[in-house]
């Protein structure tokens, strides 16, 4: 069993997670990276997607919006705009968002809107992906 380390996940609104984990997998601009205990101190931005946590041997997955990860000697912290467990995600809303922003992207009017819509779309897609894998695991 890998050694546990303390992880905090913070959003401006609430503390999403605070406890010991054995490993995490997050998405960075260069692709997914895994962090285990005694990782060297590091700071990296995180992309919209999911985070996987190994809590006491079982892997959990949650939706993670953009943010950054800090690995330090004393602590590991993830700062993110939003973080949700699959059961907290409103699937219907996410599905509606996806359709809405898909439509908006099709009739894009400016670069500015394109960027915002793309981010919003990525969020909706990531939310859906997390809930889908969750359902798959249950079967």
């Amino acid at each position, binding site marked *: 069993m890998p050694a546990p380390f303390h992880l905090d996940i*913070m959003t*401006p*609104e609430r503390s999403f997670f605070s406890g010991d984990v054995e490993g995490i997998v997050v998405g960075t601009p260069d692709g997914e990276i895994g962090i285990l205990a005694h990782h060297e101190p590091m*700071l*990296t931005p995180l992309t919209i997607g999911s985070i996987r946590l190994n809590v006491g041997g079982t892997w959990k997955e949650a939706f993670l919006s953009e943010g950054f990860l*800090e690995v330090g000697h004393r602590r590991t912290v993830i*700062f*993110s705009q939003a973080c949700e467990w699959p059961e907290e995600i409103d699937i219907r809303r996410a599905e509606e968002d996806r359709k809405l922003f898909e439509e908006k992207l099709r009739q894009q009017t400016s670069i500015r809107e394109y960027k915002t819509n793309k981010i919003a779309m990525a969020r909706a897609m990531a939310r859906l992906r997390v809930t889908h894998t969750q359902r798959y695991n249950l079967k």
Partner: protein
Amino acid sequence: MQKANEIRHHINAVAETRKITNAMQLVASARIKRVIHKMEYNQTFLTQVQSVMKDMLLSPHLQSHPYLEKRPHPRRTYLVITGDKGMAGGYNLSVLQLAQSELARNKNSEITLITVGMMGDEFFRIRGRTPDVRYGGVTQDPSLHNARKITRDILERFDGGRTDQVFVIYTPFRGGMAGTPICHRILPLRLSDFVDIDTAEPAHAILYHPSEDEVFDALVPQFLVGYIFGALTHSYASEHSARMMAMQSATRNADEMLDKLRMQYNLARQAAVTQEIAEISSSQYI
């Protein structure tokens, strides 16, 4: 009996108003309670993000960055956070007075005015300075979603070179009450902004992946969203605490007024009764 009737109407009217002010007071105090834990949490979040930022600013790798540079002849952007409604004592006015004096002090530089809340919008419109961007209805719902929207707008202006300094004018919530309004610069950042913050890690020992600039690019929006969200919740709590106080004193005034009116009513009623008796008893001698 004419006078007593008039007083009774007056009593009814005051009692109705008292009901409303009392209800507003209760609603305001319930709303404060709802955001108070958010505010405390947001403070820890901000401190943590700031400590990481301080680490980076102290690091020898990060020498210059668009968010740190001081540009000559600054064009300023002011984000003024007010309420959507009045009836909150001096809350709206004191924020707006600070904003007004800031604008007057820098009238030579190009200023972009962003108002959050209808009261600010109205205030500047009446004075012939129509806000450049307006967010209405946001102060009633200090959500992350709204904070993100505002941050995106501000960052776009800053990144696009349309503004060089960004200030937030809002009312912090201190010790359970609305504090005095403050004007705080959020962009560009300076190391001196972080003197009170503890560093988290020795800066030189950290690996920045993929590069310092990219990490800093990700960090600043996090900080700004957190800060603006904090400013919105603080303003929300301040507005409601100011409203609570105002409504408390309004209710107290109504109570005093009711006491006086009831006394007058009883006197008038008694006088009418006495007069009637006097009329009846004097009529038997006629």
